[in-house]
């Protein structure tokens, strides 16, 4: 405060009104601000993507974003991975697929999982599985809930493909299609509740 008084005091001792001999706002400042505004507008135009609500940094335009959408059939192994880790199967059979001894049977190297024809495990996953079962020569007697109501045909097919073809587990069996799951779903409409291992073994493998 005191400073500004000091500064203005000696400026024009005679008159209280400053005289406007030259523009109060220097012309160079106007030019500079205009250029700054222009540069800002150009930057904004290049990076703002017209305020499109789906475009976030680091992307600067919708077309750039649309270009990065890799279309084409999604990889069932990736969908299967996500279904498996929903958390669904992972909570019992573990991320490693090893299950837990005496409680949850392994999917790694399981003869059920790797059957050339997937008809039986599609049934087990759709409707659930209970009662005694032998997996890799170990006996289990527990129950798995039904997943048919939780996941779509595509997701069931993807997760079964994932457990059948998981290279990290050493599994390698043919993929399962959503059509196959759909067909099995139709066939087991009349089957209430979970399957048992004995029941599954009676069903022809290719069914």
């Amino acid at each position, binding site marked *: 405060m005191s400073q500004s008084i000091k500064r203005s005091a000696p400026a024009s001792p005679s008159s209280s009104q400053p005289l406007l001999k030259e523009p109060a706002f220097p012309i160079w400042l106007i030019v500079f601000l205009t250029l700054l505004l222009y540069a800002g507008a150009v930057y904004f135009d290049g990076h703002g993507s017209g*305020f499109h*609500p*789906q*475009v*976030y*940094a*680091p*992307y600067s335009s919708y077309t750039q*974003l649309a*270009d*990065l*959408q*890799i279309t084409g059939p*999604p*990889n069932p*192994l*990736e*969908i299967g*991975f*996500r279904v498996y*880790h929903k*958390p669904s199967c992972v909570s019992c059979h573990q991320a490693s697929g090893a299950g837990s001894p005496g409680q949850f049977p392994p999917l790694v190297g399981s003869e059920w999982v790797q059957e050339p024809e997937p008809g039986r495990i599609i049934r087990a996953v759709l409707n659930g599985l209970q009662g005694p079962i032998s997996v890799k020569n170990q006996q289990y007697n527990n129950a798995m809930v039904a997943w048919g109501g939780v996941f*779509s045909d*595509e*997701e069931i097919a*993807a997760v079964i493909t994932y457990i059948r073809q998981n290279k*990290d587990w050493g599994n390698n069996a043919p993929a399962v299609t959503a059509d196959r799951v759909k067909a099995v779903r139709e066939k087991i409409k009349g089957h209430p509740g979970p399957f048992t291992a004995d029941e599954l073994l009676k069903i022809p493998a290719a069914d």
Partner: protein
Amino acid sequence: MNYGPLVFLTAFVALSASWFGFVLTPQIQIGRLTESTNTLNTAELYPKARPGQAAQGLQVYRANGCAACHTQQTVQEGTSIDVYLLEVGTNAAAVATALVNANVGFTRIDDPGFFLNLPKNILPGTTIEAAKRAFKGAQSAGAKAQIRINPQGPDIARHWGVRGSVAADYLFDQPVMLGSQRVGPDLSNVGARLPDVNWHLLHLYAPQQVVKGSLMPPHRFLFNVSKAGQHPSPDALQVPPEVAPAPGYEVVPKPEALALAAYLVSLNSSTPVFETPMTLASSATSTNSPAK
């Protein structure tokens, strides 16, 4: 001269302009945002509403000021595009020619080692145009290739998230717990890297027991320490001996703690969405790295 009306008008214009810019326009743009199908599996909607307990947990999170130390917003600073060769097929020479003809920087491929150790990143950090050309070329020659799009940034390098956060991630949160300080790690994707409810309960009860040297304050008031009696509670927490209560007592999480843990586990923004394209790695990386 009476400047009253002019001052009023100026203030009115300034305020209404900011209202248009900061309130009305965003409301028009994203106010009616709904779940949409994500880019990977078009049968699935994203985001999903949090289950009831987790929705209550949000209020516990809010009430305990977790947002003072934790953000829920990962930042993406760039995107790198790679082309992986998955399988060569039967005719490696044709694939080599196709890749050279795709004009993506290969002048000649005559090293037979090029096709060993697949899958292999043959075009790290390329452009999407080049990636698509290489992909088409490889495919037409009978090889299998994949374009992988990887979001980049310091938050992603720390495994705090797999992509940048977008508005849709917060669709069902009221209020949105963005946070502004990162004393602890970002939590926008904590459910994906730490999916175990018991981990969270123990971490809330005794952070230093779970993460050596943790600066996070223990939240013991979210737990009851009570006599175990004849019928120990099935919910009782398994605590390490250093922080265990007196013999005969047990640590039982209050409903708030259970809700909070359910909320933390539900924090998961790893679904690819249109706004942040990405290719999921086939195995999740789940490292638990505290803020450095």
